[in-house]
């Protein structure tokens, strides 16, 4: 048993921290989030240069050949910085799909481009009727000649405004919620028939509604097995959940530290409010919620390679823990800051909103409690 980090991992953490401190102070982040573009392509380029996009890719494809623990470290630090640039979509999700199920040709073409930050992906999986069920798809892909024709509406595709390519889940066969018949496609955002409507999200990021109208793709656009894509989708979303868990612990830590600091300095009734025992206990609960979340993040990160049922349980357990902890810590941090906690000016509300959003991504507490329970 060993929960320590290697020297390289500590170096990685230090360099990510330094990068965040340099490029990602809170005021800059706020400005970028409100700018027309909504992100900084050059900062994304720096993230690529540092090797962070290729962290989990094999070295042959331009990656660092790192482990899930390396990704965890990056995600945690990005959580502290509330990073907008779509690291998760690319380093974890797009790379995850290609690694797990991509053909050699796809890997050779796309992994180096992702690692270099040249090709940017977003993941179009959710649909208006589907809630958190990854198999509940009305988007269809019909065989046509050598390729496929796609039709459908993908909801709240995070990071799509920044993307050149989309990973799209569509149904090639079966009923609307069947496990079989789900296929994963790579679709160029500029392809004929793809239209997007972009909008901001509450955490200062961007998303699109994506409509696919008779979009034709070749057979080489399929990642993995035709009709057998759900297993890969589940694997990759579990990997994404692990990274989100790590990200959330970074955000929680900032909220806890900020709140404790505030409670020590804010005076009411002639004494620092941190002296009121009821607030002390609340901060102790915040601390415990954070520690439990860190623990479960380690657990899920170390279990991503386990057999399917074990991995799924680990991911659901983590998502439940961080969902609950994120809500409690977010609400408590705002409450203890009083009126100041409500403002846009302070960073507290921004971490509160990000943690709130993380609970929804890839299924909220209720969804994962149920999933965990059905896994037995």
């Amino acid at each position, binding site marked *: 048993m060993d929960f320590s980090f290697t020297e390289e991992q500590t170096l990685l953490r230090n360099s990510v921290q330094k990068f965040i401190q340099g490029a990602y102070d809170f005021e800059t982040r706020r400005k970028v989030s409100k700018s027309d573009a909504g992100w900084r392509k050059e900062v994304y380029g720096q993230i690529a240069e540092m090797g962070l996009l290729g962290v989990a890719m094999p070295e042959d494809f331009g990656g660092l050949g790192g482990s899930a623990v390396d990704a965890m470290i990056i995600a945690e630090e990005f959580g502290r910085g509330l990073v907008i640039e779509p690291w998760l979509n690319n380093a974890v999700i797009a790379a995850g799909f290609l690694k797990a199920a991509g053909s050699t040709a796809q890997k050779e073409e796309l992994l180096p481009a992702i690692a270099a930050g040249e090709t940017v992906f977003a993941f179009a999986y959710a649909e*208006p009727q589907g809630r958190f069920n990854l198999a509940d798809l009305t988007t269809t892909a019909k065989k046509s000649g050598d390729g496929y024709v796609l039709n459908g509406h993908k909801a709240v595709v995070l990071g799509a405004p920044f993307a050149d390519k989309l990973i799209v889940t569509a149904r090639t066969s079966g009923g609307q919620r069947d496990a079989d018949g789900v296929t994963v496609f790579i679709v160029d955002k500029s392809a004929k028939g793809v239209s997007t409507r972009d909008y*901001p999200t509450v955490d200062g990021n961007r998303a699109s509604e994506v409509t696919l109208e008779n979009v034709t793709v070749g057979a080489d656009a399929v990642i993995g097995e035709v009709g057998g894509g759900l297993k890969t989708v589940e694997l990759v979303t579990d990997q994404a959940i692990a990274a989100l868990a790590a990200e959330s612990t970074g955000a929680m830590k900032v909220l806890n530290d900020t709140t404790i600091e505030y409670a020590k300095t804010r005076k009411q009734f002639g004494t620092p409010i941190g002296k009121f025992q*009821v607030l002390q206990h609340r901060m102790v609960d915040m601390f415990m919620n954070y520690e439990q979340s860190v623990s479960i993040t380690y657990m899920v990160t170390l279990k991503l390679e386990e057999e399917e049922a074990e991995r799924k349980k680990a991911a659901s357990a983590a998502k439940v823990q961080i969902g609950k902890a994120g809500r409690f810590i977010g609400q408590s941090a705002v*409450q203890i800051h009083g*009126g100041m906690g*409500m403002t846009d000016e302070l960073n507290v509300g921004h971490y509160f909103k990000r943690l709130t959003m993380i609970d929804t991504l890839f299924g909220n507490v*209720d969804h994962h*409690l149920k999933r965990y329970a059905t896994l037995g």
Partner: protein
Amino acid sequence: MDINFTPEDEAFRAEVRAFIEENQPQHLKGVRRGEYRNKEDFLVWHRILYKKGWLVPSWPAPYGTNWTPTQKYIWNEENARAETPAILPFGVSMVGPVIYTFGTQEQKDKYIPGILSGDVWWCQGYSEPGAGSDLASLKTTAVREGDYYIVNGQKTWTTLAQFADWIFCLVRTDKNAKAQEGISFLLIDMKTPGITVKPIITMDGGHEVNEVWFDNVKVPVENRIHEENKGWTCAKFLLSHERAGIAGVARSKRAISRLKDMLAMEVIDGEKLIDDADFERKIAELEIDLTALEFTELRTLASEQAGKGPGLESSILKIKGTEIQQRITELVMEGVGYYSLPYSDPLSHNEFAPGPAYAEGTTQNYANMRKTSIYGGSNEIQRNIIAKMVLGL
């Protein structure tokens, strides 16, 4: 004990309902205050009720109605049911009662008509950067110079001050007295030179609160309500006044019924979300909590009707009421799933809004409603009050 309304009460309900149906501003039905487009949106219902004579049921003669507490309760219920705009409290529930209780005849004649007609917009200048929960530590000073006070300092969190014509303030008039004893209650015209209003944007993106700065602001002494250094008496009176409705039971009931309508339209695995066992349980819990609170409120009302006045138990109404309001916003947000993520600009929200209309701004509303356990005496402070004053700890 009897939990039924009398036939007279029911007749009153019918009358009120008919009036509301005929007169309520339809374009504001169910619209959140953060989405009002202009100043008039806040005032239109106020003006209608003023004309009808139903604006201030709780005020004494000659202004108020002679409704019983039960009738006032019915009035609140019917307004919530019809989702009429909430009446802004700063004039009619705050400064108005202070003026008719502590003001001189001249002051009443000068200020009350504008409060009632809605022509004068009031805001509340109590809190300061250093004085929130500990209000009595406030530092804004008013120094007497002949017939004027010279006011210097800063108020903050001042709700809707951007629209205000006048502000009622607690100011320090005696630096040497004990904290509560050196405070006076001053009315200040917002147009007076030396006043600056700066917006504070909240995390949901709304502009609801402000900083109000005073730099050598000259205020006539005749604008002081009650005696010099007796402002705390006015403030305390205000806190204990008009607790009915503080729990927001009727509005929460309506919000839960909206939530259920919404859940009936959302789907999970092809079924209605409202039939999902997890959600059913959560809604049931919420409704039971609210039912208990409703009867706690009715008990308070009954004791008021028996002439006992609202007790310190009103802190229960504030705490439970706000917890329930906050819980409703959580469930709405959970209910809409991914469509809780889009940000809806409070000012230009008619631009592209993805997802169903009921999903718009749900996370922002959740974030915004965190304020309710902070303002009006935070829920920690309310618990302190119960511990000390009710439990004797």
